[in-house]
């Protein structure tokens, strides 16, 4: 019997269902009598709603309900307003629409065709308003106000987000103040200032957002594609004025999430349609609707860094504007997380950061794998390369000189431990056989053949990333009369292998075979509280809760076994699914028998795992993360200077993982991070026209990496540490550094330095042409 499940590369426990098409996604949920819901969306980026006429739609045969702003407000008893931080969103638009795609009305009908026809029968009169799309434009005096008056802030976030004056599009302002920035720049030999931009990008989980809502005897049940079942429950309870016990959220397996399935999405609109039609209602988003539901924050980051001649970093000032679009969603926390990461894995004594979430008339931005850190790393690691060039330093040496080590203070003032950046940098450099002459500026007679249009270059980048702190997970572990285990958890399986990894942790903790363990899907009526499946926290946090539940369960097993075996508690040991008397192995009793003879039916252990921390509102000082995720990427590219196309030849993502529970599933996520980052590095960008209309909202025009876009090999590597028993989440860490590593390699290959993602062939070619023109002028 194999007892140490942790550390083994088990295939996913539900692998057979997955390869035979039988696994149950939320997409498959159907209820008897279910109607199909459809959403009417705004064609304007910013407009006042003058009138909504639904009479003809309501009369259409087969229509169960039409939902509009009339259904909300004081007389209805439903405010219809929601939002995790600001109540700036409404179930359907009330007074005005704020982006192209904003829901204006919705219908539920017997089938898709009738629902579509009903939508076409709704007429809406709009009065167009001036709109603003860019985060920097939105901050200018006189810019159209997206929200006026300023929306109300949820009390739970008052310690996280500062109250700001009305009259601007500033949604939130994160401040970090460390040392004395002015004297830092005065002391510096050189000061460098740069601007880096990241565009909006899509999550593109292949399974779209889906919600099925049903009211039975006043209780709302939701089957929904969410990464946060408990947060959905509490917000829905508030929207429907129900106790949380009368909202049930069930989450089947998700076909990917990547952060997109975080906040409330389709749940409010679907549930109000269900209430109004008195039938179960299902809404499935079409791909083009996915594009207008949530995205990665476009960001403009101004970064100013002071440095000594020898390459010692002294001071850094950053102004970051994260464009959170029409609604704030979790944007203020993204801006805070990205903001607090701006000093990177480097010792910088003087740091001043102002990071803003800004409202504008584009698609709302929210959490996307990396949570603000990809934008930050693109800026600070690209600038590190530029500074190294200006100082004529080897970029690897320059980074090494400034790395954070155990005992150093982070920009938030917290003391760091378990730092592994020396090794990570070493590994990344070794992966591409880095030598100083790989830096273009240290190799003036660049030896690359000019016969061929192909130029090669190497690059690397580092990342430090927080995991959400404070946070709480709880779990229950139930032992049955045959000794098998049910793990009750609200962690969501979205492809990361959570159920398998948590089963491995439970099997290891309880000393039972993995095959005896079954892990639940989240069901808020049955499974204990979990904050969210995000922030790379499930293995660490829910794993911690399960370990504690196992301790509780083992205590109960021993107590009952002591009675049954008539020995003292101290004489008992637990091994291989049995409670044994120390020293006399013949006297033992199986877990199942203990459960059976305990007269308890079954035994349930429970455990909660929570972390503490938080940052001061004025200074950004405090505990930003219970521990820090650390990673590095090395990459080599080949650029065709005749077409501008970048081909990434190899990528080596290296992460510090503490201890790995399932090496193969870990490797899959590391590969996934690298490939996800590659898409954002090379071509992923949501493109708007001048009127705020998204022009590439489909997978024909918006490309994600296919088999033919990926490097020949990605050499993913998770560093384990013998002394470290701690589990580190690895689901996001290696996405953020990909873009800067590729950007650096592009420069070393061609001399083209781009400051705006993605690094498309067009941009590279244009920069090469401009460079040639400049060279000609110079001669």
């Amino acid at each position, binding site marked *: 019997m194999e007892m140490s499940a942790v550390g083994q590369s088990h295939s996913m426990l539900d*692998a*057979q269902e997955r390869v035979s098409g*039988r696994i149950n996604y939320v997409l498959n949920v159907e209820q008897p009598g279910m109607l199909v819901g459809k959403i009417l969306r705004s064609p304007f980026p910013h407009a006042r709603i003058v009138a909504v006429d639904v009479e003809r739609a309501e009369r259409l045969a087969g229509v169960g309900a039409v939902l509009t702003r009339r259904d909300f407000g004081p007389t209805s008893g439903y405010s219809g307003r929601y939002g995790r931080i600001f109540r700036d969103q409404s179930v359907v638009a009330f007074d005005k629409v704020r982006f192209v795609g904003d829901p204006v009305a919705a219908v539920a009908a017997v089938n898709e065709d009738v629902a579509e026809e009903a939508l076409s029968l709704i007429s809406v009169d709009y009065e167009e308003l001036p709109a603003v799309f860019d985060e920097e434009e939105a901050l200018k005096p006189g810019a159209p106000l997206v929200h006026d008056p300023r929306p109300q802030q949820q009390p739970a976030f008052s310690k996280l987000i500062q109250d700001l004056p009305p009259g601007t599009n500033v949604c939130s302002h994160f401040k970090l103040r460390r040392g004395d920035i002015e004297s830092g720049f005065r002391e510096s030999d050189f000061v460098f200032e740069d601007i880096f931009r990241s565009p909006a990008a899509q999550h593109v989980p292949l399974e779209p957002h889906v919600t099925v809502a049903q009211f039975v005897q006043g209780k709302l049940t939701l089957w929904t594609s969410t990464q946060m079942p408990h947060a959905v429950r509490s917000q829905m309870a508030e929207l429907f004025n129900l106790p949380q016990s009368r909202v049930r959220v069930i989450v089947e397996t998700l*076909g990917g999430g990547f952060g997109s399935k975080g906040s409330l999405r389709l749940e409010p609109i679907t549930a109000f349609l269900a209430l109004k039609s008195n039938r179960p209602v299902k809404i499935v988003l079409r791909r083009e609707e996915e594009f207008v539901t949530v995205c990665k924050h476009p960001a403009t980051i101004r970064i100013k860094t002071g440095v000594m001649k020898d390459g010692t970093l002294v001071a850094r000032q950053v102004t970051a504007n994260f464009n959170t679009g029409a609604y704030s969603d979790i944007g203020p926390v993204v801006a805070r997380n990205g903001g607090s990461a701006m000093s990177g894995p480097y010792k910088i004594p003087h740091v001043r950061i102002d990071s803003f979430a800004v409202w504008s008339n584009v698609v709302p931005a929210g959490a996307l794998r990396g949570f603000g850190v990809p934008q930050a790393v693109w800026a600070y690691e690209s600038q590190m390369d530029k500074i190294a060039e200006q100082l004529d330093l080897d970029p690897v040496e320059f980074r090494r000189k400034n790395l954070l080590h155990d005992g150093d203070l982070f920009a938030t003032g917290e003391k760091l431990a378990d730092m592994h950046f020396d090794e990570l940098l070493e590994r990344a450099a070794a992966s591409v056989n880095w030598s100083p002459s790989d830096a273009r500026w240290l190799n003036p007679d660049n030896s690359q053949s000019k016969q061929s249009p192909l130029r090669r270059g190497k690059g690397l980048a580092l990342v430090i990333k927080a995991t959400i702190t404070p946070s709480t997970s709880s779990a229950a572990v139930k032992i049955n009369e045959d000794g098998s285990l049910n793990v009750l958890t609200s962690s969501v399986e979205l492809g990361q292998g959570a159920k398998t990894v948590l089963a491995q942790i439970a099997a290891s903790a309880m000393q039972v075979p993995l095959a005896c363990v079954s892990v639940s899907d989240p069901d808020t009526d049955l499974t204990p509280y979990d904050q969210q499946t995000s922030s790379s926290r499930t293995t660490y946090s829910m794993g911690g809760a399960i370990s504690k539940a196992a301790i509780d369960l083992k205590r109960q097993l021993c107590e009952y076994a002591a009675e049954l075996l008539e020995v003292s508690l101290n004489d008992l040991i637990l091994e291989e699914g049995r409670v044994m008397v120390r020293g006399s192995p013949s006297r033992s009793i199986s877990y199942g028998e203990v459960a059976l003879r305990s007269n308890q039916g079954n035994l349930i252990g429970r455990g909660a795992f929570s972390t503490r921390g938080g940052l001061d509102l004025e200074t950004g000082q405090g505990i930003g993360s219970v521990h820090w995720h650390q990673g590095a990427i090395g990459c080599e590219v080949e650029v065709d200077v005749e077409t501008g196309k970048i081909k990434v030849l190899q990528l080596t993502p290296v992460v510090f993982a503490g201890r790995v529970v399932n090496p193969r599933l870990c490797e899959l996520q590391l*590969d996934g991070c690298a490939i996800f980052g590659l898409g954002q590095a090379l071509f992923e960008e949501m493109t708007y026209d001048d009127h705020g209309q998204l022009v590439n909202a489909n*997978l024909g025009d918006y490309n994600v990496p*296919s*088999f*033919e876009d990926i490097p020949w090999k990605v050499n993913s590597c998770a560093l384990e540490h013998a002394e470290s028993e701690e589990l580190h989440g690895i689901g996001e860490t290696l996405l953020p550094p990909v873009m800067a590593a590729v950007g650096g390699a592009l420069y070393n290959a061609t001399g083209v330095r781009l400051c705006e993602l993605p690094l498309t062939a067009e941009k590279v070619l244009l920069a090469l042409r401009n460079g040639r023109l400049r060279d000609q002028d110079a001669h």
Partner: protein
Amino acid sequence: MKQIIKLKVNGVEEEKAVHTHQTLLEVLRGEHKLFGAREGCGIGMCGACTVLIDGKPMSSCILLAALAEGKEIVTIEGLSEPGKLHPIQQAFVDHNAFQCSYCTPGFILSTKALLAENPSPTAEQIRHYLAGNLCRCGSYYKIQDAVLDAAARLRAEGANPTRTA
């Protein structure tokens, strides 16, 4: 307007009343309740809805159901016998060649078509053939390993056909 068509899905022919504008994917999911084919993009770009039509991988999201009449339609549910996975499926399990697995049926069916055309594909040929199937989780390297392995298993079975009985 509905019309009656005869669809032969996974070896069973049935009459179905379908709208002329209904796609094969809608009919497979809505009428047959075969949930292994899934919409990802709705425009034939992602491959999540791939089924085999007379052995060729096609995007069922852009194929009208009526046009599939008289053809052999195979979905992922038709690939394995009860209790026994197809060798390609088994290779995907053994390599854990997926994360969320929403794309997996499409990859497996495209692989089946690939290996029927070319029993010994190189890694380059695999990448080229499967470029129309997207895996957003980025499990491509494990998929490539699984396909190479599946090819080897099928070749071995071909050499020793009694094992497939």
